[in-house]
Each structure stands twice: as structure tokens, then as C-alpha cells.
């Protein structure tokens, strides 16, 4: 094939390729190397565009759940008891810590949609299971909501220092007519999942992702759960010589165009910190963790929240304000929001704000 293709046509072809192919094709020729570039979110080259664009099929952009200060006139009775788990597609998932009930609620209609379940009485241990963690999300392909619950079946989490928790996982989906359906119970002893903190997990389009700390059997890893196929997968994190020790440095998870992204930033000790942003270009492949860019400490930022479509990173600064960071220009701009507090949750919904 010796027909000569003009460069803009080559760019057109390459613009449809996923990051893995583009990174490989850098070796084709010097021209292709220049066209594709380096993944760094600095220049607008083909590889950066591919990380930002090729996968996006989501009809709904990521949205933040904001807990506002002002009280509503008639809050639902259960709202005072528990906490907000997350929100997806306009529905809030609430969890009553004391009774163990889970509610799905549509704030715009103020109707309680569904009380999902009470605490499960486990005949084996003759005790009530303690709910370790709860996840909630909307699955676009199945057109259904999924709720995932982690149960500590031996109530070991209250015991002294143990990384080993006997955990069972339940997956609920709502199905047509929002009826309750019990999908499956999986035994997770092998994976030793312990859901540590709010920012160490994220949900994207039918997949739940958690950061899990190291233990005897496994290194630090990201565990993913495919809700549709009910399959677990793991990817180890980069070595701690590269990203620091998890006892000193946060790992905050986010989603970037269907890829798992992670911000690595030191625990704040009364001083400003810098952030390293990594993206996992192929789940299951440790080497595919790619460091995208670094945010300097002079911006005085505290938490990363989520990525916007054009690669800008929404963050929270130390005053609790929303800031948008643009890695291509390395500048920030403040985002105005009324009545905000410091509680930002990273979720995905169609644009409903909590009262």
C-alpha cells in the first residue's frame, strides 16, 4: 500500500483509537510519535484527547451532591437518622445507621421510593450483621439501580486492630416496578474487602471501585465489581516507592472518561499540599498506571472531587470552596455555589441537588 495519506487524514484515523493503541503506535515513525505525543494533560495532542474522549458514552455527566446548610420545610423523617450514601440518576440513597434500613428517595417528588431492607439476621452467627459499607449506582445498560452492601458477618470490625474482616456482599437491583430483588450473596474472604473512607471509592456506569489497603496476601489494590456480571477484578497500585506509603498519603479515587483515576496527596499537616494525578489505562494491568500531571501546593487545595468532560478537575480548597483546576493551562478558577458546606460527595446523577 503505497498511497500517500495526508496528515489530517492520519490524525482523523488516529483520533478514534483508544489510549493503549496510541501509546503503542508512537513507535511507528517519528511523525506518528510527534502527532500522538505524551500523556501529560499539558498539550492538546492525540493521546491526551484519547484519554479524555474516546470512551464517553454517558448520557449523564458526573454531578456533585451538595449538603446545603438551610433546612427544608418538611424533611423526610428518616433523613435525620442516617447518612446520605450517594446519589445517582436523581435518586438519593440513604442509610439509617441504627435500624439498618436503606432508603431510595427522589427529592424532587419528596416521595419515599423504597425501604430496601432491615438488618439481616444471620442464623449462622445468631446475631445481626453490621453493615460495613453501602454502595449505590445507576446502571445505564441494564437501565436499573444497583445497591451493594457489605456485611460484617462476624462483627469483627469492632474488635481490636484487624485488617481481616469476614465480609459478605449483597447485590440488590430494583428491576421493573421497583420491586425488591435479592440478587446474590457472595463470600469475600479471599478478597478481604474493607471499605475504609469515603473518597477511597467511586462508581461508574455499572462498576464499583474501591481502594483496598495492603494485607498479608495482597498489596495495595483497586478492586472493581462489575454489577451486571457480578464479577470482581483487582489491579495493584504502583509501588509505594513511586506514590508514597498509604499511611502517609491519601489515595482519592475518581473516574475519568470511564477510566479509574487516582489523586495521590499527602495527609495535610497544617501546610499546603501538592497532588499527583494518575489514571489506570487498562484495568488489571499494573504497568498501565500512567501519571498524568501534578498540581502544585501553591493552589492551596484540599480534596479532589471529580473530573469534568474537558479534563478540568473540580476540587475543594481549604476554605471549603469549589475550585476548577485546568491542567492544560495550570490555572484555577472559583466556582460559585450558594449555601454550601464542606461536605462534598462524589457521585453521578442527572442533576438533582439535595435540599
Amino acid at each position, binding site marked *: 500500500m*503505497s498511497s500517500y*495519506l495526508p496528515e489530517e*487524514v492520519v490524525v482523523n*484515523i488516529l483520533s478514534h483509537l483508544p489510549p*493503549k493503541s496510541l*501509546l503503542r503506535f508512537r513507535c511507528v*515513525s517519528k511523525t506518528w510519535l510527534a502527532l500522538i505525543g505524551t500523556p501529560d494533560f499539558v498539550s492538546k495532542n492525540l493521546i491526551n484527547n484519547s484519554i479524555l474522549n474516546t470512551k464517553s458514552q454517558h448520557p449523564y455527566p458526573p454531578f456533585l451532591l451538595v449538603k446545603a446548610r438551610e433546612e427544608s420545610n418538611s424533611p423526610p423523617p428518616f433523613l435525620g437518622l442516617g447518612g446520605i450514601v450517594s446519589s445517582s440518576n436523581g435518586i438519593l440513597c440513604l442509610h439509617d445507621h441504627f435500624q439498618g434500613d436503606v432508603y431510595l428517595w427522589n427529592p424532587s417528588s419528596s416521595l419515599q421510593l423504597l425501604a430496601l431492607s432491615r438488618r439481616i439476621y444471620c442464623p449462622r452467627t445468631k446475631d445481626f450483621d453490621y453493615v460495613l459499607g453501602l454502595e449505590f449506582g445507576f446502571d445505564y445498560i441494564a437501565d436499573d439501580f444497583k445497591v451493594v452492601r457489605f456485611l460484617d458477618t462476624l462483627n469483627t470490625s469492632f474488635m481490636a486492630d484487624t485488617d481481616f474482616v469476614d465480609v459478605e456482599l449483597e447485590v440488590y437491583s430494583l428491576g421493573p416496578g421497583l420491586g425488591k430483588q435479592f440478587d446474590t450473596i457472595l463470600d469475600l474472604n479471599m478478597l478481604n474487602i474493607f471499605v475504609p473512607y469515603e473518597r477511597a471509592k467511586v462508581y461508574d456506569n455499572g462498576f464499583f471501585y474501591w481502594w483496598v489497603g495492603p494485607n498479608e496476601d495482597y498489596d495495595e489494590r483497586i478492586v472493581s465489581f462489575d454489577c451486571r456480571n457480578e464479577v470482581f477484578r483487582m489491579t495493584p497500585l504502583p509501588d509505594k516507592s513511586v506514590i508514597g506509603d498509604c499511611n502517609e498519603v491519601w489515595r482519592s479515587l475518581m473516574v475519568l472518561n470511564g477510566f479509574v483515576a487516582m489523586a495521590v496527596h499527602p495527609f495535610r499537616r497544617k501546610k499546603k499540599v501538592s497532588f499527583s494525578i494518575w489514571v489506570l489505562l487498562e484495568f488489571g494491568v499494573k504497568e498501565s498506571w500512567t501519571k498524568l500531571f501534578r498540581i502544585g501546593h501553591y493552589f492551596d487545595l484540599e480534596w479532589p472531587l471529580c473530573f469534568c468532560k474537558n479534563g478540568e478537575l473540580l476540587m475543594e480548597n481549604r476554605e471549603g470552596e469549589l475550585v476548577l483546576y485546568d491542567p492544560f493551562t495550570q490555572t484555577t478558577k472559583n466556582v460559585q455555589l450558594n449555601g454550601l458546606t464542606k461536605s462534598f460527595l462524589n457521585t453521578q446523577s442527572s442533576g438533582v441537588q439535595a435540599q
Partner: protein
Amino acid sequence: MKFCAVKQYFDDENNNNITSGASTTMIPLPNVESHPLAILITYCKKHLKIKANNADNKKETEKEMEQYEQELLKKVMPQELTELILAANYLNFKEALDFFCRAVASAIQNKSIEFVRKFFGLESDFELGEEEKLREEFAWSFEGVDED
């Protein structure tokens, strides 16, 4: 008119002299072979037909168009795609150009760099050792590649 290069020709013609025999005018297209041209004409006609059938329903148009495109790809050899791309590019036929570029991207996505070089008629112009270093940089991206 989809073939913008042809449209340009007509516009130029009309500016020069007012002829009524437009339907019998022969337009020289020196850079296009007859085979890819035939495919492009069929593609264009099909596209316009589907669009007319589903006048208001954009989603239906897209769906039908996708089905037609899948069928078309089964009949076209990957090597022909380059010719089609060049023809669509010359004729300034944007929809077909984008479609065939996507098709080529699909065809090469999981291929080795040797395959890609052969496909595009390219040669490595790296210095000795430069390519080695590049391969190491993102070594994981070479895993799971199709056999040549």
C-alpha cells in the same frame, strides 16, 4: 450536495457561463478511481435515502445508517479502505471520510506496529536504539496484540 468538490465545480461553472445542459456536463475527477467512486456514490445515495425516510427521527436515521455501514464493511477489504479514504478526502465528502477513517481505526486498533507500517506504507525513521527505548516506555501496550 455531499460531494463538496463536485459542488465547487458546478458553482464555478455557473459563474463562468450559464449552461442549461448541466446534467450532461462531464466533470473531470482525475484523482479518483472508478471503483471507490462507485462505492461512494452508493454510500451517498443510501445516506440521503435513509435520511429522507426518517425525516424527523434522527435516532432512526443513525441506527439504519449504522446497519448499512456494518453491511458495507463486510464487503470491503481493509486495503480498499485507503483508496476510499483518499477518494472521500478528494471529493470533500465529510460523512464518508469520517466513516472510513473510523473503519480503518477499528481495523488497526489491536495490530502490531509492523502491521501498521505495512498498511500505511511507512518505514521506521528512528535512530538505532531510539525505538527500543520507546517500546520500553509503555511496554504494557504491546501486550495482547494480534498476531501478524
